[in-house]
């Protein structure tokens, strides 16, 4: 198990996530467990239990050089529009429960399979929406003190 923790700011639960380009030649069948210095691009992610699917900003897509492999219709205030879909590896900077970690007590856990996500407009607050496609496999706890934890199971 791995535990992601954070503080609610402006009524938003923000976590630090890592993104890495999906390489089709690489095996993608096992989760990767590596120390926190593992080279991934670090971004902020909004934890959103109302989002049916995870999302990635155009900013992160551009920085990672991702290539789209499809589109999905997304409904919003302005109607329904097609958005490009991207696949990439996503992980969390987190506390390992009973696992090795770095001097800050932190490690990096990458989800086993490439993440499917919808492209969204870039914004200042976050580059990733962590949606229910990921959260449904986790335990979440929000406390009155303004902190939260997400427990990820392998």
């Amino acid at each position, binding site marked *: 198990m791995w535990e992601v923790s954070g503080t609610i700011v402006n009524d938003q639960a923000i976590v630090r996530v890592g993104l890495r380009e999906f390489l*089709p030649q690489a095996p993608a069948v096992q989760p990767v467990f590596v120390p926190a210095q593992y080279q991934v691009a670090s971004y902020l992610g909004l934890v959103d239990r*109302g989002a049916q699917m995870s*999302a990635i900003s155009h900013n992160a897509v551009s920085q990672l050089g991702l290539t*789209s*492999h*499809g589109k999905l*219709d997304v409904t*919003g205030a302005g109607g329904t529009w*097609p958005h490009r879909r991207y696949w990439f590896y996503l992980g969390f900077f987190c506390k390992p429960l009973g696992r090795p970690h770095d001097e800050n007590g932190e490690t990096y856990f990458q989800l086993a399979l*490439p993440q499917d996500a919808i492209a969204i407009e870039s914004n200042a607050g976050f580059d990733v929406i962590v949606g229910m496609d990921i959260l449904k496999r986790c335990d979440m706890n929000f406390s009155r003190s303004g902190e939260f934890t997400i427990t990820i199971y392998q």
Partner: protein
Amino acid sequence: MNIQEHEAEVDRNFDYFQGVVASLMAEHAGQHALLRHQQVDSFYDTSVAALIEGYKKFPDGLFSIQKVTVTPIDLGFYSHVGSLGHDRK
């Protein structure tokens, strides 16, 4: 192959798929279709399976994946802001 060429293939496949998705719902609802050159090649239970198989079948990467659904995605908080970052093409 450059990104523009690739995205043009994705756009053409998407336009084609919009015209046939309703006819696929009875047998393939919820599955993920692998498309190339405006034709459905095969169906998979997960998008990742379709992606990996797509690269095996078409090493040039010129393919796309469309979910067999007629229901749009709701992005929760983000669905209610004005600018969603949709593909304006």
